[in-house]
């Protein structure tokens, strides 16, 4: 599912290229998760630095596939030259993007990949894809869990909405990362909601009193699961690792209530998205597939991560920086 597709790496059409500053529109996924605000922050800051205008719109909810498509269509009619999109599903924006490609507008795909086959059939040309490899992120969590549970044990996974692709990829990766002594006993869907995750984890703990760890598909839910573990009086005995690296989660890792988070850097993703538009506007050829940085944050490096947030604490490869120099 990862790696992206479409006819990527294309140079924007000559008419659009040149020294002109791009006018950028972005359509991202949701409102009520700080993940996306950090993404927006990255865009806004790069826009300020590069003095390019950016309009950001978001779907009402992380499930609102057609609503997001409607928003894109609303923006498509206007004179933006570059569109940064973070689609809710692999295909929900394809139709709107086809229209844009037909007009030779630049399309930058971030965070969640657009389905390669669908893009191809609709003649959608993607300038680049920038995002987290979710299977890889899950795998890092799995490996960490295996380290923590030296004697092995049973673990469970708490996912987003049942059937969610991103969540599925992370859980799949997590399982790949697990060593032979650690066994997955149950997967529960908790709709990306903290309260639901708390309840689900409480129930799972009842069902499996011997449970040794939880993998949770994002931090917001992860904090709920950590709470459930604490409520059950099993803090420290049941390990919890989640994905995202939002600030509250980093604090929780530092405090020890969360055993780790695989930090993504939506800030960097958003920032690179805008950079990509800038680069395309100057006629540069963009790399087809850019892996966004992912870092495993544990108690040891939590301070460093907190100090740097929302930026990554380590160095990462930004291929666009050189293009827009």
């Amino acid at each position, binding site marked *: 599912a990862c790696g992206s597709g479409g006819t990527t790496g294309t140079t924007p059409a000559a008419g659009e290229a040149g020294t002109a500053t791009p006018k950028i529109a972005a359509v991202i996924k949701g409102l009520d998760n700080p993940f996306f605000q950090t993404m927006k922050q990255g865009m806004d800051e790069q826009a300020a630095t590069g003095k390019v205008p950016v309009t950001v719109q978001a779907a009402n909810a992380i499930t*609102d*596939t057609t609503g997001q498509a409607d928003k894109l269509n*609303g*923006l498509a*009619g206007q004179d933006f030259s570059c569109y940064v999109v973070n689609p809710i599903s692999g*295909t*929900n924006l*394809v139709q709107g993007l086809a229209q844009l490609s037909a007009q030779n507008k630049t399309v930058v795909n971030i965070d969640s990949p657009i389905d390669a086959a669908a893009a191809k059939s609709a003649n959608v040309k993607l300038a680049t894809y920038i995002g987290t490899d979710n299977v890889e992120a899950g795998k890092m969590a799995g490996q960490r869990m295996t380290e923590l549970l030296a004697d092995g044990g049973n673990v469970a996974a708490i996912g987003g909405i049942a059937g969610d692709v991103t969540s599925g990829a992370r859980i799949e990766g997590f399982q790949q990362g697990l060593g032979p002594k650690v066994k997955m006993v149950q997967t529960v869907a908790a709709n990306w909601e903290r309260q639901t995750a708390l309840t689900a984890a409480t129930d799972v703990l009842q069902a499996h009193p011997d449970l040794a760890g939880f993998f949770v598909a994002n931090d917001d839910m992860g904090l709920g699961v950590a709470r459930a573990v604490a409520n059950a009086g099993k803090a420290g005995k049941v390990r919890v690792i989640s994905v995202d690296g939002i600030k509250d989660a980093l604090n929780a890792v530092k405090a020890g209530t969360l055993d780790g988070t695989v930090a993504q850097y939506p800030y960097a993703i958003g920032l690179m998205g805008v950079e990509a538009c800038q680069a395309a506007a100057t006629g540069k050829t963009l790399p087809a597939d850019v892996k966004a940085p992912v870092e495993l944050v544990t108690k040891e490096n939590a301070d460093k991560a907190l100090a740097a947030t929302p930026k990554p604490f380590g160095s990462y490869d930004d291929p666009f920086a050189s293009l827009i120099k």
Partner: protein
Amino acid sequence: MANATLAARDGEHWAAKLKDVGFWAEWAALVGLVVLVIVFQALNPTFLSPGNITSMLLAAAILIVLAVGQTFVIATAGIDLSIASAMTLGAVVFGQAYTAQWGLVLSCVAGVLAAAVAGLVNGMLTAWGKIADFIVTLGMLSAASGLALILSDGKPVTIIDPALLALSTGRVGIFGYSFLIAIAVAVVAHVVLFHTRFGTHVLATGGSPESANAMGISTRRIKIAVYTISGVLAGVGALLLVARVGAAEPASNTSFLLNSVAAVVLGGVSLFGGRGTIIGPVIGALLLVALVNGLTLLGVSQFYQPLAVGVVVVLAALLTRFQR
């Protein structure tokens, strides 16, 4: 003499209607839509550009089809909470059939049929099981999306089909094919509701089930029929959805549920049944779509959009305040 008075009264019909506030209430959605269009156009001239109109009408197509289905159910004082997940189920069944090489036509039939069966079950449970509509369809909301997940194994299926692509992109003038289909559905629904015996019986069932029953109308059969209609239209919506997003996904589509009911109620149809129009809900659907589109065009910040939507929906409904 009696007949003279009578003729005079029927003659005053239209004049009286125009004076009657209740009449305006029925058209409140239209007034709301016009006001909205004027405001948005004044603030951003792209709003009424042919391109934007086309994309608004396309975006409205699915909602219109669902709102029409919902209208039939609501006219009988029911509510179909499962309409959006029946659509999801239809989409997934279509996707699986298509992937299994059933061919486009057969796959379409399968998709519509699946949603129709969900509706039929709703109808039978409300009619024969005597369970409250709300609970039956809430159960179906959950069950249909569960089925969709199971059938699809939780994974979306990409559908690449030239005919479907044409459906979602082709157009006649500023009217996309999907929108034209939605309008055709609405026209047929209008004829059925106001020009057939069945339609009268639907309204009678909603207005007073006991009276309808006493007059020999089988309110059960009517209930089953309206839920089946709602299911079939959810199936049609599924096809338009698959064409639109290019994939059959087990996504929950919850916003379609509330919006379909909102379109109907904004269109002046009472949730207590017995009254209804088709044009009202269609305009209600257009209003909701235009609202989101306009706010996006104006670049209203993402945090302020829900607030704006809420306020405008209430304002539009305030126009119906004279309704008796």
